């Protein structure tokens, strides 16, 4: 027997887990380059950290996904952030620590971490 409050809790929790099954164009997409070059440079722990941070902070409408080779292999691991109505931001030479900061500064607080971007690296 579940109380109404317990049912509501299950509903909220499941919604968070299942929202990746919706194809929404509205939210933010964080894309990790996961080709051979990216994986070799350490993209997997970056991806894992990003996913964990998004889950831990219960961020809605934020999608962590992956893509193939972006083409500038010397900058891997690369993470791209797509926000609706804004320019794409490309972060390079990513690490799990940098990933945590991007979630905190950029995704949550809206401040692009300029020093990690491809512009700064070049």
């Amino acid at each position, binding site marked *: 027997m579940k109380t*109404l409050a317990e049912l509501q809790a299950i509903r909220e929790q499941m919604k968070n887990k299942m929202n990746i099954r919706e194809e929404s164009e509205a939210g933010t997409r964080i894309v990790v380059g996961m080709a*051979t070059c990216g994986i070799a440079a350490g993209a997997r722990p970056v991806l894992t950290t990003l996913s964990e941070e998004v889950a831990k902070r219960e961020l809605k409408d934020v999608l962590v996904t992956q893509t193939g080779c972006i083409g500038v292999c010397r900058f891997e691991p690369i993470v791209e952030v797509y926000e609706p109505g804004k320019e794409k931001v490309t972060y390079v030479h990513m690490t799990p620590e940098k990933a945590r900061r991007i979630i905190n500064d950029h995704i949550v607080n809206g401040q692009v971490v300029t020093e990690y971007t491809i512009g700064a690296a070049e």
Partner: protein
Amino acid sequence: MIRSHILVCGGTGCTSSGSHEVIAELNKEIEAVGLDKEVKVVMTGCFGLCALGPIMIVYPEGAFYSKVKPEDVKEIVEEHLLKGRIVKRLLYQETVEGDDVKSLAETNFYAKQIRVALRNCGVINPENIDEYIGTDGYMALEKVLTTMQPQEVIDVIKASGLRGRGGAGFPTGMKWQFAANAVGDQKYVCCNADEGDPGAFMDRSVLEGDPHAVIEAMTIAAYAIGASKGFVYVRAEYPIAVSRLKIAIEQAKEYGLLGEHIMGTDFSFDLEIRLGAGAFVCGEETALMTSIEGHRGEPRPRPPFPANKGLFAKPTILNNVETYANVAQIILKGPEWFRSMGTEKSPGTKVFALGGKITNTGLVEIPMGTTLREIVEEIGGGCPNGKKFKAAQTGGPSGGCIPASLIDTPIDYESLIQIGSMMGSGGLIVMDEDNCMVDIAKFFLEFTVDESCGKCAPCRIGTRRIYEILDKITRGEGEMEDLDTLEELCNHVKANSLCGLGQTAPNPVLSTLRYFRDEYVAHIVDKRCPAGVCKKLLSYEIDPEKCIGCTLCAKNCPVGAITGELKKPHSIDKSVCIKCGVCETKCKFGAISKK
């Protein structure tokens, strides 16, 4: 942390094309590359595109893979899941546009569909109640039990204009009102899941893909009419549906959503499954209830109607699976929302099982009032192999044919009745130029002769006599007077049979007589079957101009009817030929044709 969900269809269609092997392989490969904590494989109900099974969709990308074989899985896991490169070769090709992958919702098959009854099919795992709750499941029940009076519930259903999706289209709210008004110490809520029309599989798919939607709606109905006990009557030929329904009932009981004091209120409702043995007549409401009571499934005269004297002679409501699948949504979103779809007299959507000569065999849900052309040509992808559309059959053995000339007919209850067909439960069988309409009518009559329960004479004897006349015509022994006899007999059976089975059984004959009389006449007068189906009226011939005497046909003929010398034209002995057509398919020179 799970970052990707792979939904694999576990409906009957995809199960038989091997989706469970694909799931096993996926789990194995995902573990092998160490992604088992990131990627979750979920078995769901039917996606609708059964022709392309096994089907799977990978989120968050929404990549839709079709006809996935276990040997493809390794590539999908290594390329897509590990490296993020979608394997375009294995995608449903409609979603591939040059270098881009477009969303499934933009494909022809899905673009015109609105999914209400099927909203969770292919989206949630039907064996996990939490996933149903996560898609607002049991919220309607909560709203009803905590904020609404029974009469208010009935008023909402009435206002929505929801009509029975089993075929007859009786207003659901009125049915509930009659049962609520009836006096009785015990009332029952029943669900008709005895989907018997050949080619129909909507109810099965709903039960397989979203069983909790039916349980929730039945509980709401029970509250509305004051019932404490319910039965789902489902055919034993649907093993997957039965097992998922059983799991769902167990889970609902565990959560206190069925049983005593639901959600802590004073309301109690218990639900049981009754298995039918597959008799077509048990889809008729009075026969169904007789069968639940433990007797032989035979109908009884109405009145008294089930709302007053139904199961065990107590007030009962019986609704179809798809009807129930709409109820919770109507409660949550309101009757105006429901009325915003479909037509004035037929609001909402209808699920159809597309079958026969159509490219996209499968399950579709469209707003009422969509034309047959949109369903067949746009959603269904037309007839395969460039053949010409001839007719669509709706309503199974109780319905009729819609000829190509009426392809722009909007699909709703009234329009279909007007042209001599009926909505039926939602089977839609497409026929092309290779189908003989007399043979189709004969096929359905053969079915009803078999399935007639035999209680009343018009149906028991009448359907058999109709069948015999049709058989005579397809053998080329018919006379023109037979058509008049046929028509008279059909009208007699319709008018005098006890239940819906007999009252509608002549429909396939009457509607083909109405729209395809010329085919009947061709069989009778010219002794010819225009579509080349009726074997007695066929003969195979070899064109001596085209035959080069390769002897391939003679070697393959199972009865040795073809003779001839090597490198000289052969000939067929028509007295020996059994018209199997093997020679025609084997001939590489197109020298053999049927006349």
